[in-house]
């Protein structure tokens, strides 16, 4: 299995799907000639040309809506948001059109659209550029939301997203783009809605998505080495659909759960998972479910403070120790 970066994995997924299906195209700001603000689409314009890679003006409402319309017509647009933070000027197109045209038309129309881009803090760019809106997207029935943590998952989920008949929001992470990982050979997809146990354990379930998974794995190492606690790390991978079964099975084994997310806490993804666990596995719990989230203030600019703001392994360990 080749060792490639998360960025390359995404790039391969996009290239392979463009090759496989003539209906797939990529549109967004600087995706073509510039090779992508974060180089996820590097080389694709050169390889596939103006038809498949399209640079758009700074008109997110316009080109997200264009994606919805084109998807209704049977194309499979992949719309890049330079940051998910820029979706805020255009949520109407995602929520009221992409997510609900299928429903409002009584199933006559499908919207096989992918909206992708980074959604993360931690890069020292302040509040306006550090949003993580997966909680909001997943709240809307009709949308699917995935957040890959590794290169392998990034490739498999992206390919699944492009082939999916509904709108899928892919939450990437600029801090992961450069991370290397082993990626399976050849053409594969990872079905949306399947979590993965990234580390098996017996004493505690740490449940995470996206980059929090990496943080959680580090925390699990510390817990094992320094505290003799054998934590299981469940990587959700997909937030909606959600693999409740894997979550519940894990908690039923460990009887303790910590949920880690880079969301702001109020109504974050972690809140929903906590609700589900206590609802469906109440008698299995030996301690309250804990959460580790981004600190509950607007994302701060100063790096040393933003590093505190975002969950790190120490904070996960500290939280885990309160219930172990």
């Amino acid at each position, binding site marked *: 299995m080749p060792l490639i970066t998360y960025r390359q994995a995404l790039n391969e997924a996009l290239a392979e799907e463009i090759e496989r299906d003539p209906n797939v*195209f990529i549109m967004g700001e600087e995706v073509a000639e510039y090779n992508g603000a974060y180089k996820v689409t590097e080389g694709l314009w050169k390889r596939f040309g103006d*038809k498949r890679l399209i640079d*758009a*003006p700074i*008109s997110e*409402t*316009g*080109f*997200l*809506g*264009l*994606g*919805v*319309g*084109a*998807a*209704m*017509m*049977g*194309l499979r*647009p992949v719309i890049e948001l330079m940051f998910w933070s820029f979706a805020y000027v255009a949520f*109407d*197109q995602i929520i*009221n*059109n992409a997510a609900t*045209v*299928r*429903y*409002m*038309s*009584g*199933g*006559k*129309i*499908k919207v096989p659209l992918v909206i992708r881009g980074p959604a993360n803090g931690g890069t020292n760019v302040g509040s306006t550029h550090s949003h993580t809106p997966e909680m909001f997207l997943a709240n809307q*029935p*009709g949308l*699917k939301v995935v957040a890959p943590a590794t290169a392998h998952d990034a490739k498999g989920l992206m390919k699944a997203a492009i082939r*999916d*008949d*509904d709108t899928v929001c892919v939450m990437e992470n600029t801090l992961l783009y450069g991370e290397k990982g082993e990626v399976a050979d050849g053409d594969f997809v990872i*079905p*949306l*809605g*399947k979590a993965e146990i990234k580390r098996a354990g017996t004493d505690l379930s740490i449940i995470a998505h996206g980059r929090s998974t990496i943080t959680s794995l580090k925390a699990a190492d510390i817990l094992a080495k320094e505290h003799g606690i054998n934590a299981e790390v469940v990587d959700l991978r997909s937030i*909606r*659909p*959600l*693999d*409740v*079964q894997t979550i519940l099975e894990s908690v039923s084994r460990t009887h303790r759960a910590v949920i880690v997310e880079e969301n702001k806490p109020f109504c974050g993804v972690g809140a*929903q998972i906590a609700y*589900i666990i206590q*609802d*469906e596995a109440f008698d299995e719990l030996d301690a309250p479910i804990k959460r580790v989230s981004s600190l509950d203030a607007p994302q701060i600019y100063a790096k040393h403070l933003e590093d505190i703001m975002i969950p790190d392994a120490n904070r996960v360990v500290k939280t885990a120790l309160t219930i172990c």
Partner: protein
Amino acid sequence: MTKKPDPVQTPEVPASEAAEHDVIYAESPVNKALPPEQRIKLYTDMVRIRIFEDRSLRVYQQGKIGGFLHLYNGQEAVAVGTVSLLGKDDHVITAYRDHGHAIAVGMEMGPLMAELMGKATGCSKGKGGSMHFFAPEKNYWGGHGIVGGQIPLGLGIAFALKYKGLEGCCLAYMGDGAVNQGAVHESLNMAALWDLPIIFVIENNQYSMGTSQHRSSAAEPLAKRADGYGMDWAIVNGNSLYEVRARTAEAMERAKKTGRPTLLEMRTYRYRGHSVADANAEKYRTKAEVESYKQSRDPITVFKNELIREGILNDDLVEAIALKVKEEVEASVQFAEASPLAEPATIFEDVYSEVDAPQADPANEGRIFFNLDGEWDGRTRKEFVHPDDENEPSS
């Protein structure tokens, strides 16, 4: 950048009325070519819309339709005239005032009326309601509730046509109030930038709810905003069916031949309130203003007189048409009333493709899409029974 041609600007033919416009534009090629039976069909379609709208209002007043109901009375020449030009690869998308376009593209009235009543046989299975009619098989992409929100979708339809190499275009309709939504401008720019085959149709009925055009838009004519994007534009008498057709045909030809978009401002008028719930419809405009349109500029009357002038229509035929249309409309009401209400289980259908076709892929097994009422459980969509069969309405 290859220099684009200067925009074609077509300001209004000054100071003339719809009736005169019909006479003038009867001579334009696209109208001249019309055989008599098609002229009669155009007339009939306008009547069908008018009577459907009137009837749906009565059904609403009987309490059988709820929510919003935005009627199209007075604007019929726009939908019928433009849609009459549609070829196989031409597409339509509009806002919430969408019954006229639905009838014009050929949707059957029964499912429309059933939709308004929230019936299982409704064109959207009772899920969309008045603002959300769709018929993709007739190239009709809705019916959209958020002001201006449909315009980027229209852009996407035009994009898809170009992408697929089809010689077609998209007609994207909006109101005079909608032009002040950012989405519209972003779309105008991209359409012109990329030469997308789209015709933006402003149905300027002079009011957005209770706000007259001069209280919402800084300058007139609205179509002139196209200049800023180097886009062709024209002002059209939207109550003259022949003019609507003539101007639209020009724009469609341009779209298909050169890919260049056009902004058409069709001046028209709505007779009824913004929606049935518009309690102030009599306040923000004078009765005299409304009457002046009904009396001397009604698109149906004007076109009827034109066809009489042309010797194609006469009073008997007019009556026969009215009768037939009334029957069609009554039948739609009967169809709707006789139709069953949609089942509660349908609430969770048409949300996710895997849920609707769980067997399509073995991977669908065990995937959880919904949070049902405390029980997070998508596996059991088929098992879903609504919470309480003797469920009382909550308000």
